[in-house]
């Protein structure tokens, strides 16, 4: 039993001030606050602080510096657009691929830009420069893997169509969105490859995009 002499604990004062006190304790605490000026005053001071914090304006004096920060952010973003692919990327096992799906859509968006950047650069320098560095064997291997992923994606797509009516509507919307992002990347890459067919980087990006599409479709398969 709390009386006017024993005072509220720190926990009780703080909790009543920020209204986190369990409802069943409230009548007793409020009764004490009516009789104890010390506790009531302290609770009022804590509430004053909370009001002060809530009403404090958001600092805006730094805004000019924030404007100056954008070019550095833009540079970091531009750098991250060209995604270096690990030589082992396409040999990831199923579980690792599944874990990477969350980031794969972001990668797909980056691939679109990378494809355009690579395509434009290739056109600017002429296709002979890329042909000089292209390794024919590697080109064939990458093209084969892209083809294999494309076939796998098509098989999975056919399975998805059969299951589509059984999926939740919001899941269908999310899947279609993800597939559109990846398909957009693939279309851009195919167009870039048409202009620069011997560019190995573009081929690798295409293979990676198909792999991401497979990942999305496998995720759907696992979830349904």
């Amino acid at each position, binding site marked *: 039993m709390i009386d006017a002499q024993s005072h509220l604990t720190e926990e009780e004062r703080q909790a009543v001030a920020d209204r986190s006190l369990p409802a069943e304790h409230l009548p007793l605490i409020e009764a004490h606050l009516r009789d104890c000026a010390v506790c009531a005053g302290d609770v009022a001071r804590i509430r004053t*602080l909370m009001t002060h914090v809530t009403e404090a304006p958001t600092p*805006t004096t*730094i805004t000019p510096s*924030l404007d100056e920060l954008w070019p550095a952010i833009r540079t970091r973003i531009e750098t991250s657009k060209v995604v270096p692919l690990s030589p082992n990327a396409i040999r990831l096992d199923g579980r690792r691929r599944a874990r990477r799906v969350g980031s794969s859509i972001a990668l*797909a*968006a980056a691939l679109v830009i990378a494809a355009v950047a690579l395509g434009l650069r290739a056109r600017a320098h002429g296709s002979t420069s890329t042909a000089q560095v292209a390794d024919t064997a590697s080109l064939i291997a990458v093209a084969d893997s892209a083809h294999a992923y494309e076939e796998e994606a098509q098989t999975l797509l056919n399975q998805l169509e059969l299951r589509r009516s059984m999926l939740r509507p919001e899941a269908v919307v999310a899947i279609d969105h993800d597939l559109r992002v990846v398909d957009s990347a693939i279309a851009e890459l195919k167009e870039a490859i048409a202009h620069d067919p011997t560019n190995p980087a573009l081929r690798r990006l295409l293979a990676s995009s198909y792999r991401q599409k497979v990942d999305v479709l496998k995720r759907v398969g696992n979830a349904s």
Partner: protein
Amino acid sequence: MNARVRGATEATATVNDVNDIDDVVRRAQRGDVGAFESLYRAHSPAIFALCRRMVGSDGEALDLVQDIFVRAWERLTTFRGQSSLATWLHRLGVNVVLEQLRSSKRDALRLIEGDDTTFGSRSPGGQVEARIDLDAALVQLPSGARTVFVLHDIEGYSHDEIAQMTGIAPGTARAQLWRARRTLMRLLDL
């Protein structure tokens, strides 16, 4: 209204004045850097305020703003619109700041163990300054207490959420919050 909700409202209104926010976000998600710049300009002041209050230094806060928006760019396609972009960015920002705090051994220890030695720190003259600015007062709190105070009383996170985000026990988070409030009451002469 906590800062998460207030920031979301203000930032949304700002972008709405310029363009339809959904369209800007969609363009940014498709890789439109110009659209992302619009989002940066709309949301960076609130994110800066969050960082500054959590780390207590303009320089560190600016570095963190940069990291947060680069991370936001990388993860923007995972934003599904279930919450407002401002709320999503706020949450992302809190995570980036906490990662930064955890990466510093000194600050990590403070987060876990608390740091009573500098609580109630006084001005160089030895007197508690009367009625100083809230942000100036926050700077004087130890990192762990400041983090918990900002997350709970400014950003509106619960103790359980804070415990999950910071890795400290909910009871420790409560104790840090109470001490932070007591210190601020003295510094602000309340």
